[in-house]
């Protein structure tokens, strides 16, 4: 059996097999819990899958190392948090359960329709892979510039800083050229 530390490390690398194992190991517990609320099976699975996505994101951001509970407990906690949000959205206000852990999660629904976000989604994918990686490490994985120096083998923080600025400038120019 893998230790939580190892699972955490593998999840941060998106190890497909480990991710699938975590998915399968905890699905039954979550589904059994969520079924009490008379939701369609597809909704329950969708919520569980979102919880897994959040778990991977937190692993990539290094947040799992700060946990004071098992990864499976945390995953179920995220799932419950998302279930609660879903029930509230469906106007099912009486939810007789507590979420034992604190979960930081913004589903970003409020920004998805913004034109600039939409354009950035598209043109980010048009950047070279190196720019995508730097920006992903900084803005998604929330790595500090010093960590990016080590991860991508740069000489120092200033080089990363300038490279990151160039990538952002390039992204702006791409959008302005096509939508100016």
């Amino acid at each position, binding site marked *: 059996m893998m230790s939580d530390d190892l699972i955490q490390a593998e999840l941060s690398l*998106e190890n*497909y097999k480990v*991710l*699938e194992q975590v*998915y*399968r190991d905890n699905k039954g517990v979550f589904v059994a819990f969520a079924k009490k609320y008379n939701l369609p099976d597809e909704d329950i*699975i969708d919520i569980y*899958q*979102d919880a*897994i*996505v959040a778990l*991977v*994101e937190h692993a990539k951001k290094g947040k799992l190392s700060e946990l004071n509970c098992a990864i499976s407990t945390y995953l179920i906690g995220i799932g419950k948090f998302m279930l609660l949000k879903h029930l509230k959205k469906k106007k099912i206000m009486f939810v007789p359960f507590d979420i034992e852990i604190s979960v930081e999660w913004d589903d*970003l629904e409020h*920004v*998805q329709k*913004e034109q*600039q*976000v*939409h*354009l*950035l*989604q*598209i043109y*980010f*994918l048009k950047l070279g892979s190196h720019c995508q990686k730097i*920006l*992903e490490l*900084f*803005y*998604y994985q*929330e*790595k*500090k*510039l010093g960590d990016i120096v080590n991860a991508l083998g740069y000489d120092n923080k200033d080089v990363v*800083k300038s490279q*990151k*600025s160039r990538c*952002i400038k390039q*992204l*702006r120019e791409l959008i302005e050229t*096509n*939508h100016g």
Partner: protein
Amino acid sequence: MDKERLLNGYFDNTLTASELMAFNELLNNDEHFAEELAFRKNLKNSIHINERARIKATVKQFEKATIKPSLQRKYFTWIAAAITITFTLIAVYQYTQNPKPSVLFQEFYTEYPNIISPSERSKNDKDSLIQIAFAAYDRQEFKEAIKHLIILQEQQKTNYSSLYIGICNIELKNSVAAIETLQKAVALNNTYSLTAKWYLALAYLQNNQPDLALEIVKDFNKLEEPFKQEAERLYKKLK
């Protein structure tokens, strides 16, 4: 004060007290700085949306039916094994008798045209993700097309994405991934499912599984033109 340092410090949470004061000062009084911060916040959000869509697409693949074993199932397993062995022997026999699957694949495979983007273009939505996905598909940049198609599938629940992702994977010679995606496209039972069925047969050929391709094309009558006749022709070669 170095504005870039302040912006970076804001995002990586390393602003000192004096830098935080300078940051707030600029935010309130420097329009350009405020706009730059908003741009970067949107960039952060857009990367999150893309990454989440990509990871969710991976996670969705885990969802396969799992049936608990029972005593009855144990007997069923033996029967199924016997049937599998029989079919395997038949398949081996057919394999030795028929043309190589790779040769048949070359003969029958043609890229499926982009039939999605032209209709979207008429909406004058020249910047849509759909158009960008299909522009990449038309340029035969299939890896890039897949990236966009996955996002489309997640965000807009497009009913054609699985078909095109499957075809992109065939083009990239990722036949296992192609089979998996095309099976899903067939199961969707929508406008594109019959087309997906034909390409699934071809993906099986590409993956050296002519017996599974035969299972599909033996029902060539259920397919639609232009694939019906091709499927009949392939069936005659495989049987």
